[in-house]
């Protein structure tokens, strides 16, 4: 079986370098000799429903709305996730899989409704800077990333955050950062997030292929550890 990673609308949601998440997943799968394929979906293409891991990145307001409308009209992503595929979303991508979010002119629009989260604009200044959180699942180390967003996101009652903020803003509600619901993760962490947190990349890979063999990537581990030590010296 070939592991299929689907990168959605990198042209629209590639402003903040999150496309690197796909490359890291491919790199870590190949290193373990897992057959892997990266499918690039651009506007105009049908979203495949047979993928294993789907990725959405961050982008500007206009392209975010454009991507949301394309995904809504296509319906493929919702079907794939309902069938159990994993989904990793960042920033604008995280916001648009939620129940509601601000549209390009600030009005409230409905999202894809894959997770019950609501994004709003407040009078708070833009959240920009390094972000550190303690993941809600205990086997993971501290997660780090760089956030850069205007919207703040409130989780619905059934939703668990990805982590609790130790430094930075994150969702901006109740000290939470991101969302983790089944195989679906949303986060405000750029970096890209799976580059700076290789353990999180492995969580996604394991959700698709089961137990993973041990793999140490010296530069990935050194980078993750340098960021953690620099940003949260107490760790």
């Amino acid at each position: 079986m070939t592991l299929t990673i689907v990168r959605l609308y990198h042209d629209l949601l590639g402003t903040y370098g999150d496309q690197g998440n796909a490359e890291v997943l491919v790199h870590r799968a190949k290193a373990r000799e897992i057959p892997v394929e990266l499918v690039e979906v651009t506007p105009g293409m049908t979203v495949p429903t047979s993928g294993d891991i789907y990725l959405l990145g961050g982008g500007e307001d206009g392209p975010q709305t454009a991507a949301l409308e394309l995904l809504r009209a296509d319906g493929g992503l919702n079907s794939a996730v309902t069938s159990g595929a994993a989904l990793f979303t960042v920033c604008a991508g995280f916001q648009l899989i939620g129940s509601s979010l601000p549209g390009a002119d600030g009005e409230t629009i409905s999202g894809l409704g894959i997770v019950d989260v609501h994004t709003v604009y407040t009078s708070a200044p833009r959240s920009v800077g390094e972000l550190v959180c303690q993941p809600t699942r205990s086997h993971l180390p501290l997660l780090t990333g760089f956030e850069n967003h205007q919207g703040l996101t409130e989780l619905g009652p059934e939703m668990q955050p990805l982590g609790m903020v130790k430094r930075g803003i994150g969702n901006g509600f109740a000290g939470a950062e991101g969302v983790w619901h089944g195989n679906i993760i949303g986060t405000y962490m750029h970096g890209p997030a799976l580059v700076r947190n290789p353990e999180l990349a492995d969580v996604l890979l394991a959700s698709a292929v089961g137990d993973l063999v041990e793999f140490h990537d010296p530069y990935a581990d050194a980078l993750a550890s340098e960021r953690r030590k620099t940003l949260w010296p107490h760790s």
Partner: protein
Amino acid sequence: MRLSFACLVGNFAGWVSRISGRGRGETLRGRTILAIDPRALIKLSKGRELVLVSGTNGKTTTTAYLVRMLEAATGELVSTSKYGANMSAGIATALAQGPRNRLVVLECDELYLPSMAQDLQPKVIVLLNLSRDQLHRTGEVRKVANLWRDTFVTDDVTLVIDRDDPFLEFAAGSAGHVLRVSFGGRRHPDAATCPNCLKLLDWGSGDYLCSCGLGSQLAQVRGDQRLRGPARNAVLAIEAARLMGAIVPIELATELTENAPDRISNFEIGGHSIATRLAKNPESWREALAQVEAKCVILSVNARGIDGRDTSWLWDIDYSALIGKKVICTGDRRLDVAYRVKVQGVVEVATTETFEAAIAQAGSGPVEGIASYTAFQELAAAQLGIHARQGGRP
């Protein structure tokens, strides 16, 4: 009176900064002038003919081209800032140098352009491009384009723009006089949607035309599609010079468009001469990587204020030009760039704490460097005997 005093004290402050080895003193000099006379910019620019150059990439080189062109065409001295100081203080310093020079060419930071256009009343503004850069500071590309569009609503200035950039076409949408230059066939990596109506932009064969009308205005000047970034900017500079009434000598125009110099410096370090390119955002990295010839390349990356504090953009760049070469990474964020090139497929990757150590590890063959903004500044300053950390804390 107040202005003369401000300039005098400013000169003194700049001199103290220089002789104490803290830097070139340009920023301190300008800050002092503006602190004593807040209206100094307006006063110093009065009665002079100014060109402002702005955009994400190529401001410093294009400003230098334009100065050369105007000086060659008119025989007059042109006031300018030579070292890329492009905010209020640097601009005040440039204006205070040679206050009687009629012609002034200044590069201007994108976010400062609205206030500088207001204060300095330039005759011509050259807009080179808008792309992703320092996202933590400038926010989205469209935000800058919106800011500019709100600024250029009068007809007392002529904009010279590369119309192939939809953000510039949008920014110039309400301006009275626009000279459009087109080279054609270049899809803008950040413009998947129209900056005006936000619909998906139809790039067809590499040129955009939106159903809202953006892109329908024809270019008055067409340049060669094969030109690289610096040469394209030289074409924009020739047009700006012409609008200033200067006919650029044909030899100089040919030299700059056929062999436009990059932002490249030969640094003498540890007995080696290292050709190093400044690359500060995805666009300039792509340009720099396309030029690399040596078998060993040093990449120096920091993430201090002006570099952009988020290094995610390193993943927007295709480094396949480095496959098969030895790559040594240095700078504050050497691990970020080392891992990036490793995932790209570069086999021989090393990291060192300093640029000097990188050279020592490079061996005896030719070595080239690519450095982010503050890393490049530090190398340049070290050549002048200044060993100060550039760009503040990470």
